[in-house]
């Protein structure tokens, strides 16, 4: 009986895993470093989610985008040389839970961002824009730069971020609020203005082989987090966190 059950489970699992691969160009994404691809990327994610899941592949090139939302079972693979470039206009970020997010997932399951590519938040240009808006009174003076998140997840489980380089974010690079089962592995973080990993009431967090080339704080824990494992996570001075 047990065998049958596990076979059944295996079949279910393999159905999920056999999900399809999609190239970004299928949805009209342009790698020119100019075209804002948010419409195409969001459509691709929604489309893949509707198909039951799969992987959206970005190959070498710079893909400018505004904020977009991830959906359950949609994985993103950034192949070597692929750069997801956040817009330098703060209004292009999605407002979720009082934050301005580039990539977000709320109430989702099974999310992956993997590969050898880069996510670039263009913090310099973004900071200039925020400052000028504040000076003109068009953005509340209370607006805090650290409310700009590169990756923001809430009430989401089974998240894996692996292999990529995360650079130049204005605010936290990786924020997890009420999330479970988080794996961050082999990330290179180079973002002097922002915190790298921020946990709030999250559990089963596995951090391994992370290198914090520059960051404000490598790991910030708020609320009650449980089962936070750290393996080989190094700061620029060679010290472990």
């Amino acid at each position, binding site marked *: 009986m047990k065998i049958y059950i596990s076979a059944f489970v295996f079949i279910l699992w393999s159905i999920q895993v056999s999900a399809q691969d999609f190239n970004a160009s299928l*949805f*009209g994404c342009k790698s020119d470093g100019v075209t*804002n691809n948010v*419409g195409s990327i969001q459509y691709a994610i929604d489309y893949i989610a509707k198909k039951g899941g799969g992987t959206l592949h970005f190959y070498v090139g710079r893909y400018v985008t505004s904020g977009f939302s991830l959906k359950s079972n949609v994985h993103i693979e950034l192949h070597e040389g692929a750069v997801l470039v956040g817009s330098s206009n703060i*209004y292009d970020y999605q407002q979720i839970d009082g934050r301005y997010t580039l990539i977000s997932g709320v109430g989702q399951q099974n999310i992956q961002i993997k590969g050898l590519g880069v996510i670039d938040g263009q913090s310099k240009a973004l900071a200039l824009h925020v400052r000028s*808006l504040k000076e003109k009174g068009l953005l509340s003076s209370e607006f805090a730069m650290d409310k700009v998140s590169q990756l923001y997840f809430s009430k989401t489980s089974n998240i894996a971020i692996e292999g990529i380089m995360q650079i130049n974010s204005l605010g936290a690079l990786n924020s997890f609020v009420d999330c479970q089962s988080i794996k961050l592995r082999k990330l290179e973080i180079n973002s002097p203005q922002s915190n790298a990993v921020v946990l709030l009431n999250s559990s089963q967090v596995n951090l391994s082989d992370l290198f914090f080339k520059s960051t404000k704080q490598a790991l910030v824990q708020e609320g009650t987090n449980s089962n936070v494992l750290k393996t080989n996570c190094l700061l620029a001075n060679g010290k472990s966190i």
Partner: protein
Amino acid sequence: MNLLRTLFLLFLSFVYGAVSAQDYKVSDFGINGDGRILNTRSIQAAIDFLTNKGGGTLVFAPGNYVTGSIYLKSNVTLHLEEGAHLLGSNNPFDYVKDSVVNWQSMIFAIRQENIGIVGKGTINGRGFQTAVNAVENVHKGIVQDELKLDRLREWNRPENIYFRECKNVLIKDITLRDPASWNQTYDQCDGLHVEGIYVDSKSYWNNDGIDVVDCKNVVIKNSFFDVADDAICFKSHDPNGVCENVLVENCTARSSASALKFGTVSRGGFRNFVVRNLVVYDTYRSAITFAAVDGGFVENILVDGVRSINTGNVIFLRIGDRWSKGRKPSMKNVTIKNVYAEVPLNKPDLGYNYEGPIEDMPRNISPASIIGLPEYKIENVNLENIEFVYPGGGNPLFAHRGLDAQSLEGIPEMPAAYPEFSQFKELPAWGLYIRHAKDINLKNIKFTIQKEDYRPAIVADDLQGGNWQFKAFLNDQALEKSYHIHNSTNVNVK
């Protein structure tokens, strides 16, 4: 009619009073006019900021502002300075199909008040490329559309402007170009003032100039339309809706369909219209066409002052029974006066992009027509001071419709067909054809043909009542008794 005028004046002051408040420059929000950066969200943020502040004007300095779908909100006016171009993104995925209207657009406004788009700048949908890209997405299999006539359905292509259930809308001085679908739709709005706009749009199928759907208190004046589909188009989508209290004044229209049109969708109705000083040229179908084919009504319409040059048909009034669902269509109290019209022998829109399709052959030149249905008659139409110039030359060997009872009654009723002046193919008159009508009065009407035609100037069939005072000519030569009346009563010909 005086009542109408006071109503308009009152309403005008209302609209102008609404525009006020502070100006904001787009650059303040980081909206970028470089022609490459996508500004959808920053424009939206600026609009939201202004509406939350109680209103204001967002000023676009000269530049090329690329955007996808944005929503205009209450008390916000977009001011496009001369040289400012709001450009539609060419990525179909940058547009929203709004859930209320079920249609795509660049600029939406849903249930907002005191909004406007003004200034000498341009809204350019760049729709041709967007439509082509959308077709490609269907072929790639990532977007579903039945591709009727090898193009996406018009609601799956973005318009330039779609406003629904808005109050006090001002559209002034702007230029509109090249959407992927219709140009601008105002749907169930109350208080729409369109003035001094320039619409040039022959970029893709269904490029209507302006579509006013079930709106009240509408002014369209001093505007110019050169478009691939209908130029000035009133529709009634809602059986309980109505287009009413409308003034169209000092407009010029060119179309590869019809210039001034009621319909095709005509579920509710149209009433209290004044159309003054309309110039129509190079237009493929009708200069003026009113259709009540979906159970709606048309009443109290005054058209005063039309110059129609090189246009395929002058007047086409039609009751049909297409999507009526048991409701009774009607058309009454229509006055059309002070018209000069020249109908050409050749295709009037030759050489324009997206020319109207050649169809309905063989037929000789079609007459102006007033055609009801046996059970739904068109009532009380007054034609006054009209000069029609036709090419004539109707050749019975090419197409023939006789005047005998059998021939006349053999003209099909076609109640459910798409209403178009050419739908009946050959008609038995060269100047005016009337069928299923009551009280059609002609006062000081002159018909001229330039070549002999085998048909008479006027044919009436099933007309109950009418006083006709008209003259027909072959060039300078008067044509005596150039009419035929069949199965009619109380028609007095002077």
